[in-house]
């Protein structure tokens, strides 16, 4: 007659973020390579020319790494004190770096000793950069000044004394030889023009500015300071365009993806966030182990390099196309070609009588047991074996046993090992709101059944105590959630304008708000 219907495993909606193009793109990196530096990594800069080495400024040295090396290709160690802001010139031949001892040094990337030393600042120099015509250097210092230097003569061209606090960031224009922007702890960004003696545009960020970034078109400038990332329109005289507040600690570094479509910001809160530059929404998020100080993307987004306060340099390389495909290939092992085509390529002749083979139905192990009403064995095989990694399978079997009214029999009569296995599963999954409606009655049944033997096995007792602890925590957590919900309801109720005709609009917002805050008992969709 009708065949056995296997246990239906519900498909639960995936928790967490939705899979978008962005997550696919930004997840497609290998496991990070971690390199320990001597101190906090304050700056990372890629060479503009191939093979795109990058300079990592950490403590008193600057290391140059090749694109795939894990050892430094070269090191610059001739600093008396902490080095800052090692940056390449646009031809990749020269490197400039500031230092705590107020001296700016210029290196040839193939040499070791500084080619030029620029002395004139009175305090630590945190910002250095080459201008776009390649013969000048711009520096910013803790003595509130920023200066322009001529490389061939090693002389100071100009000094700007407009900031009233430390200058900690700055960038030169790639298109115009005379323009550069500085950001200072006096909360302002200033655009300077080398042809005049003072700043052209001043923008008030509101917080000490930690990082500043120019768009490739140079129409927009992005600044980071405090918890804010702000975008300014230079063509409109420095009008603020957007203010983003997605980090909960100071944002330290900014970076654009190679096509300019995505903006990345790194923060002391250990996150790197990726924004879409058209609508400035966060599209992806990376987590790191320590506060992030510096961030750089290789050309074509080939790798993401992040320097952290604990001196660890984390390098993520993009997966090659073969590697990203390999994952799906590994899962499907096919029989060899010969087995596969055996007998399949025979064309039946006209008079042949075709005997069709009955399609054999394959049942999983627990279904075979369920078919034979071996309920304890069904539960055992759902707890062990390949379904061990999938709690939804085990939960579905427990639910099926409950529907058949035989869950109590299946749970009873277990020895110490089997019981502790069962308890392990329950403690692991009980607080998951998807499984709680099934597992809570099951846990109650277990307590009822084994109440008389509590205290005989230390293993089981320990697990039961853990279960009790877990439940207490969960209850507290739910209590807090309800508190928050109550507060939010009050807020919503006071914010909704009083419209007497309908109560539907308020109930609607209410419903949505509940759905967002307490994701515990909301109806969920599952697509099949």
């Amino acid at each position, binding site marked *: *007659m*009708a*065949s*056995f*219907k*296997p*246990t*239906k495993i*519900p498909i639960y909606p995936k928790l967490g973020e939705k*899979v978008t193009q962005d997550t696919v793109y930004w997840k497609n990196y290998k496991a990070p390579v971690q390199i320990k530096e001597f101190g906090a990594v304050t700056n990372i800069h890629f060479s503009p020319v191939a093979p795109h080495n990058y300079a990592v400024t950490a403590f008193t040295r600057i290391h140059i790494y090749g694109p795939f090396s894990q050892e430094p290709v070269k090191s610059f160690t001739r600093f008396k004190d902490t080095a800052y802001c090692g940056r390449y010139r646009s031809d990749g031949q020269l490197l400039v770096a500031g230092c705590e001892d107020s001296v700016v040094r210029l290196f040839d990337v193939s040499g070791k000793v500084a080619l030029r030393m620029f002395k004139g600042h009175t305090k630590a120099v945190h910002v250095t950069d080459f201008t776009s015509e390649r013969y000048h250097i711009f520096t910013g210092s803790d003595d509130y000044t920023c200066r322009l230097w001529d490389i061939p003569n090693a002389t100071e061209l100009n000094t700007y004394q407009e900031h009233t606090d430390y200058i900690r960031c700055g960038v030169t224009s790639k298109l115009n030889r005379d323009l550069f922007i500085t950001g200072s702890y006096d909360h302002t960004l200033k655009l300077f023009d080398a042809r005049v003696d003072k700043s052209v545009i001043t923008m008030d960020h509101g917080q000490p500015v930690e990082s500043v970034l120019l768009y490739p078109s140079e129409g927009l400038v992005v600044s980071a300071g405090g918890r804010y990332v702000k975008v300014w329109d230079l063509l409109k005289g420095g009008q603020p365009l957007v203010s983003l507040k997605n980090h909960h600690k100071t944002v330290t570094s900014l970076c654009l993806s190679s096509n300019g479509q995505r903006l990345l910001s790194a923060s002391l809160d250990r996150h790197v966030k990726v924004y879409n530059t058209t609508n400035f929404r966060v599209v992806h998020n990376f987590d790191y182990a320590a506060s992030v100080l510096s961030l750089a993307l290789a050309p074509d987004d080939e790798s993401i390099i992040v320097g952290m306060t604990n001196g660890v340099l984390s390098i993520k390389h993009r997966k090659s196309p073969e590697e990203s495909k390999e994952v799906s290939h590994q899962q499907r092992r096919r029989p060899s070609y010969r087995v596969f085509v055996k007998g399949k390529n025979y064309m039946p002749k006209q008079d042949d009588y075709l005997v069709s083979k009955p399609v054999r139905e394959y049942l999983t192990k627990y279904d075979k047991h*369920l078919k034979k009403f071996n309920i304890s064995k069904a539960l055992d095989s759902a707890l062990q074996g390949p379904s061990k990694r999938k709690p939804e399978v085990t939960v579905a079997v427990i639910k*099926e046993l409950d*529907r*058949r*009214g035989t869950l109590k029999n299946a749970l009873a009569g277990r020895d110490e090992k089997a019981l502790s296995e069962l308890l392990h599963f329950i403690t692991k999954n009980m607080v998951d709101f998807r499984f709680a*409606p099934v597992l809570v009655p099951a846990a109650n049944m277990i307590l009822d059944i084994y109440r008389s033997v509590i205290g005989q096995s230390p293993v089981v007792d320990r697990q039961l105590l853990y279960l009790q602890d877990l439940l207490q925590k969960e209850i507290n957590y739910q209590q807090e959630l309800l508190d928050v919900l109550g507060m939010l309801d009050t807020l919503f109720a006071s914010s909704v304008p009083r419209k007497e*005709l*309908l*109560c*539907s609009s308020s*109930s*609607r917002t209410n*419903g949505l708000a509940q759905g967002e805050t307490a994701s515990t008992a909301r*109806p*969920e*969709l*599952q*697509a*099949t």
Partner: protein
Amino acid sequence: MVEHGDIRVVHRGGIARYCRFLCERGIFCCCRFLLCGSGYEVKVFSTSTEECIHDLRAHTDLVTGVLLRPSNHLQAYSCSTDGTVRLWDYTDVCNRLMFAMMCVFAEFQLVAVHLPQSGDQLVEAREFSAVLSDVSSNPAATSFGRGGEYIASAKGLQLEVYFFKKQKPYRFFLKEDNKKGGKNTFTCLACHPKDDCIATGHEDGKIRLWRNFNHKKEYTYTTLHWHHSAVSSLCFTPEGTNLLSGGIESVLVQWRYNQESQRDFLPRLGAAITHIAVSPDGALFCTSHSDNKITIIRSSIQVSAVIQGLVKGDSVRTDLMVDPRSKALVLNGKPGHLQFYSLQRDKLLYNLDIVQQEYIHQSGLEQFEVVKAAFDAYGNWLATVEERKQKPTELELNLKLWAFDEQTQSFMLNTTISAPHEARITAMCFCHSTDSQTTVLVSVSKDGHFKAWQLAPATHTEGPSWSCDFVGAYHSLVPECCCFSADGSLLAVSFQEVVTVWSPASWELLTTLSQPPGAIRNLCFGQLTCSKYLLGTTDKNLLCCWNLLTCSLEWSTSMDVSLLLSDPFSENMAAFCCQAGCTDLFVFKPSEPRPLFSHKAVCLGKVTRAVFAPREKMLESCEETSQWLNHSQLYFVTQYMVNTQHNELVISDSVAMTPFSVLLGKRSQQEGQEAASSLLAERTQLPQGSAAVRELLQTPAHVLPSTSFLCSMFVESLLISKQIKRKEKKAAQYTTTSLWLNNTLCPKLSRQKPSLYCPTPILHD
């Protein structure tokens, strides 16, 4: 009383009308035929084609048993609660020989009757001799032993064996409970055909094989145990090599006689087995099931044929619906299924598995049940709600949406929404507009909300699926019913006494209508030209009609409407009013409060569900009272409680008969008794003969009798005799009311039982 015209109620239910043959024994006549009692008649089925070949009808009450005549296997006895035993010649055209009048189980006393040999058609038997007194009312608990030497009967905890030679009964008693607490009550019994052995089935699932029972003290029994609940039927094969048993588990178990450890099983037969029969040569078994089904099984334990009528579920929880594509009637069928029943062909099309879970045949187990279902306008989408209630707090609800798949011509599961509401869903409807791009489903629940579900477009990873679009509530009142207007521009949701009207485009509350006191029970928009009207019934005996253009009450009348529904193919609305145990039917147009048609006492009991089904061909009746049936037929279900202990499913159909049945029905009247024929004359408003010819041609050839036989009958039917005309006049004096009662209550007069849609011709000689 209005003129009756040709509107009458016809009961339908497929092969087993009233779902009655479940309690009857099906027997095999040979390998080719299967006889079974079904309602007031005995049906003969072909075992190979599953078609019904003959209806043997003469009994005027329920047929309780059918038995082959041992001396002549081409004849069979049938007994009925009308007090007659009839002998049938079933292979031929039913030469019926009304045999004897006797009470077999009067007050459940077993009597022996000597059948007088005589050539008369009607014989009264006067020689009774009581054999056993106080026997079980269940015919399965009584059986003849080897060669008719003894008879065994069981009741309660007592087994009684009566030897005809010794004229002496032996009684054996069991204790009420055995040590493990099993109940020892006897449920059924079978005697071995070749050996002195009696097999008895018990309440706790045990089977006992009794031997040596012609001694008072030295009897022995062995116990077999496989069934987990009561054994409902036992049967030995003719040679006695195997014993078949079945019960609620719906597993047929075959035990080897004398090697009882060897068993064969045929599991998952679909519903509880109520009776088992074996053909005389032992090649076929048949099991009848509690869901109105007979399964024919080969002796190799393989199913060879299934004879299925309208599936009888526990109750009809879903509304009656008509599938817009197949025009099939859709309602609850097997547990967890929806059945699609073709009204045109009077045949079950298929069962759609909604719950998709293994059904555990065990009494007292809470299972998922389909409680609501709805189709969209084109039949592209089907929404179902299933629920399982273990404890009041743990209500499990699933809302499933099924898309019609053109390739497989069936519904495929698209979206499952678990826990769509926090409490029971009381109503659900699709937006029936024909031009809108998006389909909207509204579900109304006891948790105080109604939700609108919308088809979300396909994403790049998965196809289109349904999601919640809007949650609405009104002053934390509990909504009861919902209804979309014909063009889909308005949604009416009733919240106790208040009807709220919403716009589905913007989900704005447009207006509220209310007519206190009394909560709204039914809500219905007018159709076609009357679409500006909204009708509602309250539980305080009020039928209200609101005009939505003026937002005011157009008219209201005081009547206790239990069910209100609108015909989607015309402007008409039907209201069923329950009064004093009978239900009256009113048909009216919303534009005027005057009924077009009314019918007192359509049926007994309350009408719970009803539906308008479209006709295949429009009728062109110009009579005012029957015009409303031109486009559609009205089907309804009642909680019908006559003659039976449990509620039964009765599908009634107010419709004129087909020409074919008229043709043949008239014949039976011509040769029938006076009382019956006078009633039958009602039918003789004869449609054209050409229609009858068409009907004849559409009937499958293999169920038709030979052409030569039909020819004379057909020609005769075209003649209009004077006698009929006279009878017609006579019939006109009968009021319609009495006709209804006659049809439903008085079994004697309802000889022309209405299997009028059954493709088999009713042939009497």
